């Protein structure tokens, strides 16, 4: 319990910083910044993006998940994996590839120009650009949870509905969808918070959200209280979303059922090939196209005879910090989750909610808050790997907490109770019963934290030890100098090294669960 509270307080350090900074300016200045028309417009733009992203990503995820788990889609096992892979692209790489393909001077326009077609694809930028990039590259957060939900669902309800003569549509909406609420709420929360804190995509497609505005305020440098004041609004939105999700989830019945047998697969019939085509097109847009852009950089570098810079050391650094962050985040997620799930109470729920605070804050704000506190309180830790890992944990702990919480929720306490009644101590129960049983969930959480840490940029740039290069910083250095050829190898290494653990820790366990 003390561990849980300590963890929750520690990850709220950035929050304290924001309030110190915002308060430094005094109430009149704060009110002037926050209760202004610009802030209201910013709020509308940001919420419009979050809403738009969810409106596209949720139906897309549910459709994909349903196609690969419930139908006879050709090659469904392959597509099940492929559909989750866009997660490995950092949003700045995804967005950059996006505009270089679809932008007004992109590959598509260039290819069509000789045919006299001018599609003026200005939609690659602005709201439409941010909306599509974020939805198409981050939907796997929802998709993976929904696939897991569908696998765990007892098919007897849908079969009963079908035997009563309901159409496949009606079966889906009346018998399947209602049972998916839990993963949909949890996944939507993760996606919404991700969208709120994203900087890479919105800055490249130039759609101003709170996060981008906070960055600009820091760039202006003249008054840091502006950035902090804006961040407080982000905190309020985050709290509202977390409360909403936990309220919605708390009204759901506990889902403890285990499928008695695998579901019958629905024959797609004449929809078989259109569905396949749609899945192929999606993979071309959000997987093959960005890969092609990165490979294009590499080929260009090779043709120009430029050295493609080795990425070996940077790769080791990336792997090292990502492993540390993943292990630390999962370890810290345990006390919080077990307390909330097994004992409950308002204090436990509050503590659990508090661990999410870092997730919606821009990386830059978290990094600067740690700069502020570390240089004042623990100078020896400043610019060390340890502080960098702390930053990652603050940012990504919610991913580990979500996974741990979900796997504890799916584990009936009956096993633990039985062991206790047989005289085992709590510690022994945890070690021999709970942890082994929720291991896949812990590994999935570790996989997610690992992945996002590999991709993390703003905090890495500010908090890393001097001279400490990771794959993400290498990509950043090269692209900020406009030397895309130098970015090719680190970017490929980043995507490649992320893909392996993501497949083994997240995708494969989800897909193999109860499969035939």
């Amino acid at each position, binding site marked *: 319990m003390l561990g849980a509270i300590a963890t929750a307080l520690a990850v709220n350090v950035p929050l304290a910083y924001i309030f110190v900074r915002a308060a430094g300016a005094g109430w009149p200045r704060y009110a002037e910044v926050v209760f202004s028309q610009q802030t209201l417009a910013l709020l509308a733009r940001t919420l419009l993006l979050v809403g738009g992203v969810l409106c596209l990503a949720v139906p897309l995820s549910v459709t994909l998940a349903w196609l690969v788990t419930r139908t006879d889609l050709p090659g469904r096992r392959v597509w099940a994996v492929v559909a989750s892979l866009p997660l490995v692209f950092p949003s700045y790489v995804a967005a950059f590839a996006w505009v270089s393909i679809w932008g007004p001077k992109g590959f598509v326009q260039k290819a069509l120009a000789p045919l006299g077609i001018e599609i003026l694809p200005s939609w690659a930028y602005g709201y439409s650009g941010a909306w599509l990039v974020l939805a198409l590259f981050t939907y796997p957060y929802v998709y993976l949870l929904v696939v897991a939900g569908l696998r765990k669902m007892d098919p007897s309800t849908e079969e009963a509905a079908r035997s009563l003569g309901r159409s496949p549509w009606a079966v889906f909406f009346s018998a399947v969808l209602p049972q998916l609420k839990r993963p949909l709420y949890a996944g939507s929360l993760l996606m919404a918070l991700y969208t709120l804190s994203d900087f890479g995509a919105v800055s490249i497609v*130039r759609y101003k959200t709170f996060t981008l505005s906070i960055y600009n305020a*820091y760039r202006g*440098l003249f008054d840091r209280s502006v950035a902090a004041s804006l961040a407080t609004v982000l905190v309020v939105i985050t709290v509202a979303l977390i409360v909403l999700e936990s309220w919605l989830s708390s009204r759901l019945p506990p889902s403890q059922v285990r499928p008695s047998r695998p579901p019958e697969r629905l024959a797609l019939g004449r929809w078989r090939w259109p569905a396949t085509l749609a899945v192929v097109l999606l993979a071309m847009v959000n997987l093959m196209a960005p890969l092609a852009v990165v490979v294009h950089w590499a080929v260009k570098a090779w043709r120009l005879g430029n050295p493609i810079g080795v990425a070996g050391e940077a790769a080791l650094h990336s792997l090292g910090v990502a492993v540390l962050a993943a292990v630390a985040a999962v370890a810290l997620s*345990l006390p919080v989750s077990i307390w909330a799930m097994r004992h409950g109470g308002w204090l436990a729920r509050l503590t659990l909610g508090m661990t999410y605070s870092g997730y919606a804050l821009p990386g830059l704000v978290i990094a600067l808050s740690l700069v502020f506190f570390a240089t004042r309180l623990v100078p020896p830790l400043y610019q060390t790997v340890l502080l960098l890992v702390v930053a990652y944990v603050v940012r990504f702990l919610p991913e580990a907490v979500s996974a741990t919480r979900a796997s504890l929720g799916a584990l009936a306490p009956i096993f633990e109770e039985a062991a206790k009644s047989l005289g085992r101590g*709590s510690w022994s129960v945890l070690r021999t019963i709970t942890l082994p049983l929720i291991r896949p969930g812990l590994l999935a959480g570790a996989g997610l934290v690992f992945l996002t840490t590999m991709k993390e940029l*703003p905090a890495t740039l500010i908090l890393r030890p001097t001279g400490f290069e990771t794959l993400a910083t290498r990509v950043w250095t090269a692209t900020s100098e*406009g030397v895309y050829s130098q970015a090719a190898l680190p970017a490929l290494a980043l995507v490649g090294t992320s893909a392996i653990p993501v497949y083994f820790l997240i995708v494969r366990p989800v897909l193999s669960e109860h499969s035939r």
Partner: protein
Amino acid sequence: MLRGSRSLMVGVGYLFVTSFGCAPAPDEAREAREAHEANNAKTPIRAVGERSLVVYSGRSESLVGPMLETLERETGIRIEVRYGGTSELAATILEEGENSPADLFLSQDAAALGALSGEGRLRVLPQELLEAVPSRFRSNRGDWVGLSGRARTLVYEPSRISAGDLPRSLEAIGSDKYRGRFGVAPTNGSFQAHMAVYRAVNGAEALETLLESFSMNNPQAFPKNSAIVEGVIAGEIDFGLVNHYYLWRALQEDPSVTALNYFIPEGEASGFVNVAGVGVLSETPEALEVVAYLLSKAAQGYFAHETYEYPLVESVAPSVDLPPLSEIRSPDVDFAQVSAVFEETLEAIDRSGLIR
């Protein structure tokens, strides 16, 4: 309940021990070692005779790395460089406060130095160092000094538009005859800095009018300066607003390029030389030695020959065929003031619709 949570703590402790304590993976051992080294580097106790400095550099490694290596050899001062974005590093220095490990800050633009100066974070430099460069390229308060200059120019293709037909001020770009013929990079830092200076000199309304006149004249928006130069070379546009050295870099790749630079002759803040400079954060005497080196013939020559920028020390000539710096118009502004209008400038650019 109590007993349960206590065991939990033990459990977490166990996890920590197993994951961190026993037999760390090679990566982790490596991180630990490096963390340790990074720590040692910052402890004030240094080996006798070893002189070292920490430099935060907003200029990229490929640009200043080789020069700093030469500097280490020439001065015997070991330099530890931390590369990053200019504004992120400046924000970091502000948050670090008095505890900043940085001795020197190399900035890509004057606005970031102006912001640090405004918060009193920079040390006043000796007069002889300041006077190495003309007064408009150094701090009014004497606490930072410019090292190299990047002039804003119009790059143009003489076969499509003659120099005599080019706009003689920024305001003239809004004229009907240039409709759809020019390019800008509205998200590029140099464009934004130029507009912030324009606003500081001419006021908010003048900036709104200027941006609107650009925007209404159907310009092509490019992501960055080099893309504008490529656009001019490829004939997509007739001219574009860029930094002067991009043309020289393009010429280095392809000597057959016929495009030219045009230095805007009239208008308040139509011409502008952005300054990359250095500020000193600590009392370490070596820091001043390094500043002196950066203002030396060797370092100034490096900027001239390797980056095609203007050396700011007047006795060092630019390497390429450029009009002398003294002939280029650039307003004498207080950069702390420029940084104060930066956010509003970004918003004005945003509102103008140039971006979309």
